[in-house]
C-alpha cells in the first residue's frame, strides 16, 4: 500500500512523515506536490505538519486553496483515508473537511513538548489498531493548537463520537493541567462525520522510534496499513 504525503510550500514535516512511513513502517510512500492533481495511486493521504505559506493570514488558510486540495476533497468524499497532522489538521479545518477552527495557544507561546493522548474511538482508519482508552505519548510543537467551535458544534461532535484523541495525564485523566494549549474539551484530534478523515495536533510521525523519545505514534500509522490491507476501511458504528 502507498502513503501519499502532500507537500505545500512551507511544509516541514513532510520528510519526517516519509521517513516514518517508508523507513520505519516499511511501506511505500511518495511526495505529492501541492500544484499537482495526481494522487499517484496513494491509498492513504497525509497532510503533514509545518508552516505552509508561513502561517500567514491564518494557519492553513492559503494552503487549503492549493490545486491538490480539490483531489484531496474528492478522495475524502469517496471514503479515502486522510490524516492531517498539526498544520495538516489546520488545513483540514480551513478546508471544512472537519468542523471548527484553531486559535492561538492560550499561553500565547509556541510549545514543543511531549504530551499524552487518549484514544477515544477506534473505528477510524487511524485508530483501528489501538485500544479504546489507550494512552499514547507523543510530542506537540505548535503555536495555534487551541481548538475552538461553537458549543452546538462541540455537542454534536461529542454526540457523534467524532472526538478521536484527547489530551490527558500519563495516567489517562482529562485535566486542565494536561491540556497544553486550552483546546475546548481537551480535544487533540477529531474525525469527520464519515469517519475517514482524521486530524490531530500532536505528531505521531515524531513518535515512531523509542530512540527519539517514544514509539507510541506507530499505532496510528499501523492502523492505516491495517485498514487498507484488511479492505475494511471504516467500521461504521
Amino acid at each position, binding site marked *: 500500500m502507498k502513503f501519499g504525503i502532500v507537500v505545500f510550500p512551507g511544509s516541514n514535516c513532510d520528510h519526517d512523515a516519509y521517513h516514518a512511513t517508508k523507513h520505519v513502517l516499511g511501506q511505500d510512500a511518495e511526495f505529492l506536490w501541492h500544484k499537482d492533481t495526481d494522487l499517484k495511486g496513494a491509498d492513504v493521504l497525509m497532510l503533514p505538519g509545518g*508552516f505552509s505559506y508561513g502561517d500567514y493570514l491564518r494557519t492553513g488558510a492559503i494552503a487549503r486553496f492549493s490545486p491538490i486540495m480539490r483531489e484531496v476533497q474528492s478522495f475524502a468524499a469517496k471514503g479515502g483515508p486522510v490524516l492531517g497532522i498539526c498544520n495538516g489538521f489546520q488545513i483540514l479545518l480551513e478546508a471544512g473537511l472537519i468542523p471548527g477552527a484553531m486559535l492561538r495557544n492560550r499561553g500565547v507561546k509556541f510549545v514543543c513538548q511531549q504530551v499524552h493522548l487518549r484514544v477515544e474511538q477506534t473505528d477510524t482508519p487511524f485508530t483501528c489498531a489501538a485500544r479504546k482508552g489507550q494512552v499514547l505519548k507523543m510530542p506537540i510543537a505548535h503555536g495555534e493548537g487551541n481548538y475552538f467551535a461553537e458549543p452546538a458544534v462541540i455537542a454534536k461532535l461529542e454526540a457523534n463520537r467524532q472526538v478521536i484523541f484527547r489530551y490527558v495525564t500519563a495516567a489517562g485523566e482529562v485535566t486542565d493541567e494536561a491540556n497544553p494549549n*486550552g483546546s475546548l474539551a481537551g480535544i487533540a484530534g477529531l474525525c469527520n462525520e464519515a469517519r475517514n478523515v482524521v486530524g490531530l495536533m500532536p505528531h505521531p510521525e515524531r513518535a515512531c522510534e523509542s530512540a527519539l523519545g517514544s514509539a507510541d505514534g506507530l499505532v496510528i500509522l499501523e492502523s492505516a496499513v491495517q485498514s487498507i490491507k484488511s479492505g475494511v476501511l471504516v467500521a461504521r458504528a
Partner: protein
Amino acid sequence: MIDPKVLERHGLKPDEYDRIVAFMGRDPNLTELGIFSVMWSEHCSYKSSRVHLKTLPTGGPQVLQGPGENAGAVDIGEGLAAVFKIESHNHPSFIEPYQGAATGVGGIIRDIFTMGARPIALLNSLRFGSLEEPATRRILEGVVAGIAGYGNSIGIPTVGGEIAFEPSYAGNPLVNVFCLGIAKATDIIKGVAEGAGNAVYYVGAKTGRDGIHGATMASAEFDDKSAEKRPAVQVGDPFMEKLLLEACLEVMKTDTLIGIQDMGAAGLTCSTTEMGSRGGAGVEIDVALVPQRETGMTPYEIMLSESQERMLLVVKPGREAEVERIFEKWDLHASRIGKVTTDGLLRVKENGMVVAEIPNRALTDEAPVYERPMSKPEYLAEVQKLDLDALGARDARLRDDNAALLALLGSPAIGSKRWVYRQYDHMVRTNTVNMPGMGAGVVRIKDTDRALAMSVDGNGRYCYLDPRRGAMLAVAEAARNVACAGAKPLAATNCLNFGNPERPGIMWQFGQAVDGIGEACRALDTPITGGNVSLYNETDGQSIYPTPVIGVVGLLEHADRVVSRCFRSAGDAIVLLGEGRGELGGSEYLKVAHGLVQGGPPSLDLKAERALQDLLVELASARLMRSAHDCSDGGLAVTLAECTFDTGGIGADVAIDDVKVAGSADTNRAAALFGESASRVVVSVVPDAAAGVLKRAKAAGVPARVIGQTGGHDLRIAVGGHVAVAVAVSDAERVWSSAVEHYFAKQVA
C-alpha cells in the same frame, strides 16, 4: 573635498578616506563611498581583528573548508561533511529584539545552505542583563520569540544552547546563533564568481530600503540616539527563506552553478565583491534589473540594502533556463542582473550607465588592517585579588550549604531554561537524540549510524578576570560537553563579542582571548573553521565583559551510544573524573553568596583536559557510561543535582574530599562543593563496570574515584566525612525548574 559629517555618517575615518582616494585615483562618488563604507566596516572587513585571527589554528586532516568562505566544513565520514558556523546579531537585537534575533537566525541558516548543505540543527548563545529588570525581560522575550518564530517556521530544530545573565550585558545583549548542516563532501559549493561572461543571477525577496547601514551600525556603539536607528533593522520572512532553501538545494543537485552566496551584511555589495574577489574576477551588475519592492530606489540604496532572504548566483553557461525553471517551481523568480568579467572590478550600472566602479580587491583583500594598540587594563590587578580568608560572612539568606545550593539552582544563570527552549521546535526533522537541557545537542544523521554532537559555550565573567584563561576554558567546556555526549570533538567555530577595539584595554582583552583560543584549540585538536567578530558592544562607554563564545562539533560513530546528563537508575556507581581544587575565583557561588566578581578563573591543564575528553569518547564507545555531566557553573554540587533532575526522582549519596583553601571550615566546604575547577565530569556506571572504568581512567592518566551511588530520593553530599548537603531531589528540582519561568509566569485563563 569630502564633508567630514558625510564621512562620519559612513563610519569612515579621514585616513581611510585618503586610502580610498589613493586606490581610486580620484574622489569616490557617493555610491562608491557607500560601498567602501560597508565593506571597510569592522563587521565586514574584520580590520581590527584580522591580525589576531590569523594566529588561530585552522587546519587538520578533518577540515574540508576553513575560514574564508560562508561557513566551515569538516569530514564526518561516509562521504559526508558537517558545515557549520556561529554568528552574532547583537546590535540589532537590542534595537528590535524579535526581528534582530529572527534575522540573525535567517542569516546564519543562509550561510549554511549557500555552501550546499541542508541545515539540520541550530544552537544559540544568549546573554542579557539581570532578569530583575523589566527591560531585560522584554528583550529576552523578544529575542526568544524571534528565534522561535524564524527557526520553527523554516523547520530547523533548535537543539540546545546557553543563556547567561550579567549586568554587563544589560545595554548590550548578545545574540549568537550557530547552525549546522550536512552535505556530500564532494558537493560543497563555494561563493566564487568565475568565467568571463557567465550570468550573475539574483533570487529571493525584493530589495527594499531595510537595514541600510546595518553593517556600519554593527560597528558603532550605542548612545541616546540609538532609538532613531530603528529603521536599520530588517524584517525577516522565514517562509521566503524556506522556499529559497528548498529551491537552492534542488538547483545545487543539478550542477548548474559556478558559485553562490547569500546576501547578508552589506547585501548586494558584499556578495558581488566577495564572489568576484575569490574568483579573481570582476562582477558587473545593472541595478535597474534588481527586483525592487519600493519605488525610486537609488543605486546607493540598492547596493547597501540589507533586505533579507536574497541569494546571488553565478550560473554555468547554457544552464540558465534550467536554473530559472527550478526557481519558478518554488514560485521564486531568478533575475539575471549581470555578468562575470575579467577586469577584477565591481562595476555597478544603472540602465546601462556606470554609476560605480571599484577594484574588488580594494574592497576585500586590501581593506585596512589595523594593529591596534593593546595595553593591559588597570582594573585587572585589583579584580584578580581574592583573599578567601577575608571574605566575610556570606549572604544571610544562605544559612547553610543546602540553602546555598538551592540559591544557585534557583538562579537564572544556572536554573532550568526550559521556559525558553520549549518555545523552540527541537524535534522537527526527527533527528534529535539529545534534547535541549540534556547536555550537548545531538542529532543523528539518517542513512548512517552516525550522529553529531554540538555545544556553544562561553563565560564572560571568567574572561573579564583573565581573558586568556577564560577563553581557553570556553574552548575546553564546549569540547568537553561534546565529549560527555560520547562524541569526538572535531572542530570549532568562534564568535568573539567585545567592546570598542580602539581602546587599548579592550584590544588587549581581544588579543589575549584569541591567544587562549588558539592554544586550547591546538591542544584539543579542534581547529577553527570560521566564525564571527562583533566589536563595539558598549553603551555610553561601558563595555561588556569580553565574551568569546565557542561552538564545537563532534562525531559519534554510533548514534546509539549517545550519553546524556541524567542518572538512569538507582544503584549505579557515581564516578568523579578529574580533581577539584576548590577554586572559587570568578565563580557563581562567589557572586551569589558574597556579591563578588573577583579572583582568577579556574586553572586549566590542557593536557589533562585532552586526556579526559579522549577517555570520555572511549568510555561512551564501550557503552560504559550510563550518564555523564561536566562541572561548570556552580561546581560539583550543582552538577550532581542536575544529574538527578528529569529522572523521575533518582537521588544520589556521595562523599567528596574537603579542600584547604582558607582558614574557615565553611569556606573550605563551600570551595569543595561549589568551586568551579575545570576538567571534571560526573559519570554514572553500572556497579560491575566501575572497576573497569577506573582502570581505563588510570591508563589514560585521568584521576578517577568512585564517590558514591545513585538511589533514594535525596541528594546527599558529605564533605570530608560530614554531610554538608541533604536535600530532597523534588525540592531542588522544583527550585531549579522555576528559576527562569517565575519571571514570566502568567496564567492566561
